[in-house]
């Protein structure tokens, strides 16, 4: 099992979510997050271009069985891009080993619980 963590632009969330559902991946967790990336996005406040210290993004946590790893990565990468070639600030995908998954309602453990 793998835990796939994707940091994407907020405005790409709908596309990413719909693409994941279309690819058969429907168990996702979404949260707001902020951080430093390569992107610099200025806001305009009283005539001053201002770059915030931390840039807002959306974080997806997707637990998958091993055979879904590549398709999840592909889907997120494709849907989260803002242009054909992608642009700075579109986000990142991290994959980590997932030791265990437990469904709270019935206590099932392992890949079946995902």
């Amino acid at each position, binding site marked *: 099992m793998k835990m796939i963590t994707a940091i994407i632009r907020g405005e790409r969330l709908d596309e990413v979510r719909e693409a994941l559902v279309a690819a058969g991946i429907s168990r996702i967790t979404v949260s707001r997050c902020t951080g430093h990336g390569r992107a610099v996005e200025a806001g305009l406040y*009283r005539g001053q271009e201002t770059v915030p210290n931390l840039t807002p993004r959306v974080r997806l946590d997707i637990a998958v069985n091993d055979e879904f790893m590549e398709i999840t990565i592909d889907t997120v990468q494709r849907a989260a891009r803002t242009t054909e070639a992608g642009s700075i600030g579109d986000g990142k995908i991290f994959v980590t080993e997932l030791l265990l998954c437990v469904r709270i309602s019935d206590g099932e453990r392992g890949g079946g619980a995902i």
Partner: protein
Amino acid sequence: MNGEVDAGTTAWMLVSTALVLLMIPGLAMFYGGLVRTKNVLGTMMHSFVPLAIIGVLWPVVGYALTFGEGILGGVIGWNSDYFLLMGIDTTVTNGVPEYVLAMFQGKFAIITPALISGAIAERVYLRGYSLFIVLWFLFVYAPLCHWVWGPGGWLLERGLIDLAGGTVIHVSAGFSALAAALFLGRRKGYPDTAMLPNNLVMTMMGAGLLWVGWFGFNAGSTVQSGMDTARALTMTQISAASGALTWLIIEALEFRRATALGFVSGILAGLVAITPAAGVVHPAGALVLGAISSGACYLALKAKARLGYDDSLDCFGIHGVGSGLGVLLLVFFIRSEWRAAAGTDWTVTGQLVTQIIGVATTIVLATVGTLLICLLVEKTVGFRLSDREEKAGLDHVVHGETGYGLMNLN
């Protein structure tokens, strides 16, 4: 001057008093939305606290010091009848119970120090700020108000045109704001770190309330319910709209974007410019004054970024600059009937000199007075937060509260 109560005028003055009071929560929302999340309550308190402090000081001595007859060679007013408002229980002035006039004027005394808080936001103790506004009210506002509006005030006698407080309120607050901001120094991290508004929605709503309240501010200052009132209200509306539209156009030309904060900044620029002028200019004058003020305030905010002083929420950049221009430029837009009534010896140049004297006096008193008061406050109760406290934020350090409970899980 005792007489019959004029129900119509009294009713309008009561409404105006309430409208000016409405500007306090409006200002609190305007300023509160512009600071960082950790300072939202502390900043809103800076607007609200004068309601209590000046609200008490005003009936005790404030009304006597401003609207009493001149003493000490006209430096300040005094009327023992006005001490604790004891002698006006049955007084009627120009058809209006004097209580109403005293309360109407008292609201101006409340909002003026609150305006200054915008320049020193996010870095002062409430105790220091409280002492500051008491001293500022007594030594800057009270004499200036007496000179411009009090019986026998020397600027009034000299013919200074200032309907609703271009000098008394906005120029004095604006230049005091600049002096206090320079005295206290920049916020930690400014201008290298972005200090973004926590809630521009609240700022927009606050600006809306200010616009509404300004009708009481300007049209109420005619102290009647008639032609002058109608004129003042009309000019106020026109100038605010003109100011807002101008700011939008400037941003569209420069950035190809129109911002909400820019829009409300333009509203304020238009309103502060027409405040001294609303009683004497015609609609075309109001249009031009609003537009010029908006452009000048825009440039002033640009200059702030270049000069590097930290007028946190642009009290000087908008109130000082916009209203200062309004006080001076109004002479070029005065209605011909007004000029005719003023007599043949009235000239634009002569009036401009008077207006310049009014503004210059205000600037000197506000700047010197504020610097001395700041020094006194810093040396006694303390004015500027320590580095550690500034980092933690006013809400936690001063109030032990949190503005937004959104992150609480219970």
